[in-house]
């Protein structure tokens, strides 16, 4: 059933951020809210009325819808172990990256639409960091395509399980890159601190300063969905093929929870970088994915 992974990701998104927050609260010695608290907040927001700025135009009103829709479509492309996603075709990960870019395009111009200097600042940073992170993802997918000989999410994750240890080593490196990409895409530590209280140091939070009510709810939940989506990609690296759903689903949920705990741990122990150091940090991810590429070349014996 191709829709299974879609439903699983949606379910995961409900508690993902909750686990992150819970982990952080445990590490800092607080009791912390329940894991469904972020969802309750979003639900509350969805029932509120929208407040719009006098400056903004229809772009600002439609931007959250397009942003949310782009994340939904991206999720539809994610496979589940041996099962393909709802949509699967050669080069679907290119579509995946570009459809997310559509959402980003609109969230950026939505921020610029308010005429607020802080939101312009956030938009500028978001655009800068996302273009820096782009090559890493493509090199990673290129290496996986090279390793498996396929060019779609479904086929790649199907073919990656040779059963050898090396493919799992590459899986680990790849999940490292994916975690970092997810942190950047979702504007979390060490690039951005969602809990900072100074607008000057924010990225994503400051872009949505003027969004309220239903729109803000959509944007916040899109972040949850994005987290669960990257978690699903990482889980795919470790789903063993040919096994029944009663193996795959627990592995999937397990990887997602582990990912959330890792995110929470990272955020508890790492401080946010200075803004001027972020580009260097983001670009190092590209070099790590190049490392994966060379590892794959070595495995395939292309060096002679």
């Amino acid at each position: 059933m191709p829709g299974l992974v879609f439903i699983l990701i949606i379910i995961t998104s409900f508690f993902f951020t909750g686990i992150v927050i819970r982990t952080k609260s445990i590490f800092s010695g607080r009791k912390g809210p329940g894991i469904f608290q972020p969802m309750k907040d979003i639900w509350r927001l969805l029932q509120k009325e929208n407040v719009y700025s006098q400056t903004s135009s229809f772009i600002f009103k439609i931007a959250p819808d397009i942003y949310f829709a782009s994340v939904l479509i991206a999720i539809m492309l994610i496979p589940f172990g041996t099962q393909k996603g709802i949509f699967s075709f050669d080069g679907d990960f290119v579509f995946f990256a570009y459809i997310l870019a559509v959402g980003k395009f609109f969230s950026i111009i939505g921020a610029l639409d308010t005429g607020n200097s802080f939101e312009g600042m956030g938009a500028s940073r978001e655009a800068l960091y996302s273009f820096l992170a782009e090559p890493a993802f493509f090199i990673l997918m290129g290496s996986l395509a090279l390793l498996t000989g396929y060019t779609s999410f479904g086929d790649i994750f199907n073919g990656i399980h040779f059963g050898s240890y090396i493919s799992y080593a590459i899986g680990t490196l790849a999940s490292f890159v994916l975690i970092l990409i997810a942190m950047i895409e979702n504007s979390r530590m060490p690039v951005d601190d969602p809990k900072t209280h100074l607008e000057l140091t924010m990225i994503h939070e400051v872009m949505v300063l003027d969004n309220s009510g239903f729109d803000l709810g959509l944007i916040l939940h899109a972040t949850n969905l994005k987290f669960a989506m990257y978690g699903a990609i990482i889980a795919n690296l470790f789903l063993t093929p040919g096994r029944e759903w009663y193996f795959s689903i627990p592995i999937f949920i397990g990887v997602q929870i582990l990912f959330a705990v890792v995110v929470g741990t990272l955020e508890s122990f790492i401080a946010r970088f200075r803004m001027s150091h972020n580009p260097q940090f983001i670009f190092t991810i590209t070099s790590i994915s190049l490392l994966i590429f060379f590892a794959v070349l070595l495995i395939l014996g292309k060096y002679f």
Partner: protein
Amino acid sequence: MSLSVCIVLITILFVLFVSFSKEAWSGSIALGAVLVNTGISSWVAVNAVIGHSYLEIINGGPVFGDIPIRVDALSGWFILMMNFTVLTGILYGRRYMKLYENKSGMISLHFASYIINHTSMIGIFIVQNSLAFLYIWEIMALSSFIMVIFEYKNPETLKAGLNFLIQSHICILLLTIGLIWVSSHTDSYDFNSISTYSASVSSAISLVLYLCFFIGFAIKAGFVPFHTWLPYAHPVAPAHVSGVMSGVMIKLGIFGILRMLILVNQNYLIIGYIILIVSLISGVYGVALAIVQHNLKKLLAYHSIENIGIIGIAIGIGAIGIGTKNPFLAFAGFAGALLHTLNHSLFKSLLFYEAGTIYQTIHTLNIDSMGGLIKKMPQTAILFIIAAMAICGLPPFNGFISEFLIYLGLFEGVHSGSLSITTVFILLIAGLALIGGLALLCFTKAFGIIFLGQARSHFDNEINESEPSKLFPGYLIVLFILIIGLFPQWFIRLLINPVSEFTSGITDGFPALKIISNLQSISLVAWVFLLAIASIWTIKRFVLRNKRMVITPTWSCGYSEANSKMQYTASSYVRSYRKLIGPFLIMNKKEGEIKGVFSSPIHSQTHPYDKVEAIFIDFPLKIMNKMMARVRFIQNGNMRHYILYGVVFITIIVFISLLSGVAAYLFNLIKQM
């Protein structure tokens, strides 16, 4: 009557018409001419694209010899693309020029050159006689020069125009060298002799021959480092001319590169690598510089360089596909190149038209003084954002489809090619992804600062939406952008014949079918995406139906007196990016000093400059000027001296021919001894 004679006669007739009619009518007459020529050439071109190529031979007398007119699928594809943009160009330009009527007296000349330019571009695509080709190329260059310097009273325009004229003649020089080289060896001006000649010589020589053509055409196309004329010429030309130049005229270079790829027999692998490297540099450099531009049209001009780079990457992939006999690679590469050529001509001409509309409304192209135009000109804003998203390669618009084909080729090459192909292609993938991300930064800046927020400066005249007849060409283009974006599979079928011109030896129907089924899925997902947006919007409307909508000032983090001056500007938006790539840029900065406790207003100005231009154009020119200064005494303005120079020159020529006879005689003598 034959096709070409027919088109030439129509052109002459309409040019005479334009010259002797009232200025007010000249736009409409030009439209008529373009319509008739478009009709005739498109009919032949459509037939060629679906597989019935056209051939006629005109007797050009003793000078030209036989002039073959061949319209194959490749020419057909380019003619169709060019006709559409020229048509929308004249539809838009007719309205654009209304403002200049009875002011400059150049309008008739302008429209006459527009007609001539259109005809000469058709000629370039179909004429396959070296000498005739060069003549037509020259006519094209001169007519576009006249169109560029329409506002010749502005010294900046004239300077840019001259720059354009000189560089297009360097291009012609290289083409002349290449074509004469071949015809001096084969005694034939027919293009087919190029392939027979290059098959008869060693591969190194044909590589040099190809590079000669490549550099010549690369100047026209605007590959880095041959691009320097482009960011000057595009901004100063009237908007529809910029649109046509950027949309189709630089594609003449692409056409030339592709045509010579078919004709010159060479090592496709090496030529593929060369094209790939030049293109990657062009792509990244073009967009990297586009971001820091303040002038909207200059920004778009640098984006043309980027897109030429993307087309070049596709051509390189295709060449490597032929070189390695990989049909999928070849098909994806050339189909991507041809489709991106079409796509770029659509969205870039649209962007230039809308830039022209903005210019005529607020009389400036400086992005930093715009803002909030979306409320005054909503239709222009919608047209602009669609083109902007298309040029960023975002689905569901057309730019994505061609970039997707290129990505498919690259990923295919990564896992099926040799080590060197894999390594180069992975770098290209990273480069293409980088270009995509940078384009996003660039066009969020352009759209966001121009149309969104509040107006950044005050304009005396009232800002209104432009009239429907000026918006109509834009909607026409958007229609095609959407059709290609949402039904890409139709266009791939059309591309099968043009691509098979290159891959006739190695491709069967197989890769095309695979790609078509892929694109069908993309079209499906694109529709689902639109559906998802619509349904979320509907749900939102439903949930909020009984709630009031509150309109308040923008939240300024507690500050209550926020004004339009406090918004982010284009320069501040890209500041962190500018710092990041600082070493690759030259930013000329002028800044006043703060004097005293109560300073008078101070100004700070930044002007981005092109580092490649500084190294490849300005520096050699400086040296040349220095060397020329030593012999400047020759040019002393004295007529008698000039006559003396003539006599000396003739004497030297005569003596050289005499002496060469003597030398040959002596040489023979020594040989016999």
